[in-house]
């Protein structure tokens, strides 16, 4: 930091010293803009600075489906939400406390989504008030009135005008100016913020970094001058951090890190939203661990290439989303049939068909479990946190090899774009795949030397003398000979299925969050963990006997569910996929279609598992779930009274 800027920030510190910062436990901030105005970069930098200062942080991007949607349109809202707190944060939370809006139109889509509450502070770019186009002036004036009528606390600020003093094209620099404003408002560490700016623009050179530092300082001074409020969110207590080192990533980067830490050396993919950024990150760093990203000509070729690589050596990985998963179905079944280890990561998005490419859904569970014609048992895992996105890839590779099977890891768009700090993994050589075995294979040992109890068998790899066999997707004997006879098909089907039972026998029953028994048990899977547990805590705080349980293994299912379910009056899954509302027209016990995990649990446990699920395309919020808990408990009580 130069002496001049030090003096400047000292002067600012004096200027704002008189303004007392209001101490908060947590705050939720949104920055919304047209696409391409850098709101996400601003928010990510703010999130990182807060994480480095010791706050619990969760950020989630607000992404329009188009790259350049029309400017000033509600559908084009692009932005980011940052929830940061003096405690660990596991989800996006409920309504935002403060929003910075680059125009008034983008706010409307957020209002429709229930993102704001009465009293939410809105820092609104005011330049539209004097726009040369009369319609824009009218829209702006009308919106400001409406926003205030809706209870929002609107502060109109000439942000762009202030930026113009520094640069001629504020569209490209306004985001760092806003970062400066936010860092003032939340009393952030300015040196850390500038360090982050330097990292964010390191590829653009010193001049660009300098300009952005200037914008940042100007934004900081502007906020001090224009705003009569200020906040502070204290860091988490040191014992919460337990002296650990943390890394900050989104879920897709975590998947990519998991791939590297697992020792897998090949990711074969085809571009698909919202999975692709995992491969972008890998393409940047994978060479450092000797890996390679293959961009295939299509989704089928992507998995075929990975299966070829796995067959000939180390387990390979393919990363996709729902539509890609559908295309990969036949290949996935081949990997099951021929027992080829493989890791398939499905970053779920809204479906069916092209659906909601940038938005979250947990709609692929049953497709992953049962999507293939015929019986195709495979291991299916679901990551519940960003950290698990990393760790579960490592586990997936090991399971794939041990059980000689494809393993599907489900994540979703919420995890993929959510960013948070989590403990830095301390990798060990054990995580990495050992070099492939090329020793002689005894010709007496068949290529599928199934252990009749577990279905497990060692795998010959090309290059092993004496191990030559012909892998086939046709029904086959333990010698991998094509066999159409009844006994061979029955036996090989049993052996492939038995492996899941063998894996299940090693699993522990899931732990229950909350009380060990009670009136209502919520069951979830995947990215909803944080929101469900926060809702449960809120409800328990009100004295309600509600608990939750979160599944990581979907195939095989974790053991002991029936016993756990027996301790609660009602069981209900909470999911982000479609189910019929029991009160909707024509819906009754015969017609009601259940959410996907609910179907699975009903079939597996014969317990009358209820469900609550929605497909709004956004992550579940603790407030919504809390409302559902209260409503369902009331219904149980009424039923009990009757």
């Amino acid at each position: 930091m130069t002496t001049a800027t030090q003096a400047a920030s000292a002067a600012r510190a004096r200027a704002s010293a008189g303004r007392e910062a209001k101490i908060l436990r947590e705050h939720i901030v949104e920055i919304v803009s047209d696409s391409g105005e850098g709101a996400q970069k601003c928010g990510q930098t703010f999130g990182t600075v807060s994480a480095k200062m010791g706050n619990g942080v969760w950020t989630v991007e607000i992404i329009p489906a188009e790259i350049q949607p029309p400017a000033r349109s509600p559908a084009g809202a692009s932005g980011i939400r940052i929830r940061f707190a003096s405690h660990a944060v596991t989800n996006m939370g409920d309504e935002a406390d403060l929003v910075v809006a680059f125009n008034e139109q983008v706010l409307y889509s957020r209002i429709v989504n229930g993102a704001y509450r009465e009293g939410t502070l809105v820092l609104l770019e005011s330049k539209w008030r004097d726009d040369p186009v009369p319609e824009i002036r009218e829209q702006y004036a009308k919106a400001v009135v409406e926003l205030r009528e809706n209870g929002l606390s609107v502060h109109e600020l000439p942000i762009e005008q202030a930026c113009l003093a520094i640069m001629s094209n504020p569209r490209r620099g306004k985001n760092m100016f806003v970062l400066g404003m936010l860092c003032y408002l939340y009393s952030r560490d300015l040196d850390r913020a500038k360090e982050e700016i330097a990292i964010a623009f390191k590829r653009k050179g010193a001049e660009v970094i300098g300009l952005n530092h200037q914008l940042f300082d100007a934004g900081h001074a502007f906020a001090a001058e224009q705003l009569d409020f200020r906040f502070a969110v204290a860091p988490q207590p040191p014992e919460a951090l337990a002296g650990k080192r943390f890394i900050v990533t989104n879920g897709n980067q975590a998947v990519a890190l998991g791939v590297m830490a697992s020792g897998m050396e090949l990711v074969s993919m085809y571009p698909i939203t919202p999975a692709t950024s995992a491969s972008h990150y890998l393409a940047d760093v994978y060479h450092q661990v000797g890996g390679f990203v293959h961009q295939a000509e299509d989704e089928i070729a992507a998995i075929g290439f990975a299966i070829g690589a796995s067959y000939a050596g180390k387990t390979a990985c393919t990363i996709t989303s729902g539509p890609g998963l559908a295309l990969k179905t036949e290949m996935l079944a081949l990997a099951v049939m021929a027992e080829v280890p493989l890791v398939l990561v499905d970053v779920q998005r809204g479906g069916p068909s092209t659906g909601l490419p940038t938005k979250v859904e947990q709609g692929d569970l049953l497709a992953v479990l049962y999507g293939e014609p015929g019986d195709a048992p495979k291991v299916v895992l679901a990551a519940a946190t960003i950290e698990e996105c990393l760790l579960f890839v490592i586990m997936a590779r090991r399971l794939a090899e041990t059980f000689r099977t494809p393993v599907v890891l489900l994540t979703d768009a919420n995890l993929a774009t959510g960013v948070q700090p989590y403990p830095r993994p301390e990798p060990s050589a054990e995580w990495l795949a050992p070099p492939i075995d090329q020793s002689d294979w005894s010709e007496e040992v068949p290529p599928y030397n199934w252990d009749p109890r577990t279905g497990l068998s060692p795998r010959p790899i090309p290059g092993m003398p004496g191990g030559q066999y012909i892998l086939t997707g046709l029904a086959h004997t333990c010698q991998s000979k094509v066999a159409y006879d009844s006994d061979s098909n029955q036996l090989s089907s049993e052996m492939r299925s038995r492996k899941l039972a063998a894996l299940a026998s090693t699993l522990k029953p899931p732990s229950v969050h909350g009380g060990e028994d009670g009136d209502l048990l919520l069951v979830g899977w995947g990215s909803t963990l944080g929101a469900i547990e926060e809702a449960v805590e809120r409800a328990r705080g009100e004295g309600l006997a509600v608990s939750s349980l979160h599944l990581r293994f979907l195939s095989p299912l974790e053991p002991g569910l029936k016993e756990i379910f027996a301790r609660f009056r009602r069981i209900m899954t909470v999911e982000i996929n479609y189910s019929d509302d029991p009160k909707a027209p024509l819906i009754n016990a015969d017609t009601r279609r259940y959410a996907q995990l609910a179907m699975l649990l009903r079939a597996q446990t014969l317990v009358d598992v209820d469900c609550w699920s929605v497909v709004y395309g956004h992550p579940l919020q603790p407030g919504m779930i809390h409302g559902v808990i209260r409503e369902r408990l009331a219904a149980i009580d009424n039923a009990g009274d009757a």
Partner: protein
Amino acid sequence: MFGLKADWSHEVFDRYFTIGDYAGGEARWCPGCGDHAVLNAAQRVLRDEQQKPELSVCVSGIGCSSRMPHYMGTYGFHGLHGRALPVACGIKSRRPELDVWVATGDGDCFSIGTGHWIHAIRYNMNMVVMAFDNAIYGLTKAQTSPTTPTGFKTNTHPTGAIIAPHNPLTITLGITNASFVAQVVDWNPPLLYETLKAAYRHRGTSFVRIIQRCPVYSDKFIKELQGDPSRFLVLEHERGIALDESVPRQFPQRVRHDPSDLGRAFQIAADTSRLPLGLLYYNPAAPCYEDLSSQGADLTPRQRLAGLETVLDRLTI
């Protein structure tokens, strides 16, 4: 003395492989099927090259010809219809030392697997692609294939195939990075052998279209070809395929063709009145994708761990 080199003893192999080492199950193709000849030629090439059977992988899709891996004594991968090439490329990606042969048919390669065919040629990974073309779907019983001649009666077009067939040669020659494009018939074993040997020795994707007899479903079409030598044109060149004396006896029409001349190769291929036999195009300098995809495969676990720590350090707060 006796034509032996002084250091001949150094060339004695640890293991000497016979045809039997490359043979798997007994071939169950129909009697008179051209696939038998291709299998024999491939096994002979491997024997003559003394390739270790455990280092060779025969990959196929689905169809009559895709049964080939089952009849080989090497490793094999009999996968999905149309998808032999992505699997073959994946096998090669991190194990470039493995020797890969692909058996694919006209339905497998030119119809359901068309996209992979185009892109596998572009990747140009070192492998032999044997496109068995009998101009009919055999395994599913006589449906029109992309190379069925117009008017040829099939079960899906009982009054005759209604659209003009693909020309697999011009298509392949038109793909960026094509490096070896040849055509042979199954009924001249010396030419078939020499072509597969040249294909095997070429570093890159060697695409060999093999016009192949199906005595059950497309016999009439092939019989006409076999009975009319004027339908073929043998390509001669010192950088082309070595021609046994049986070749000109069977196919008297010959032309000198420099296989580095892509434009001329295209002209020859486009003239469907005379089917070229031999090497149409050859570019040994075309880059091979495995040179990129296998990078880093030699890193030690310690190096990988160090690389991972570096990546994590950059994300650590």
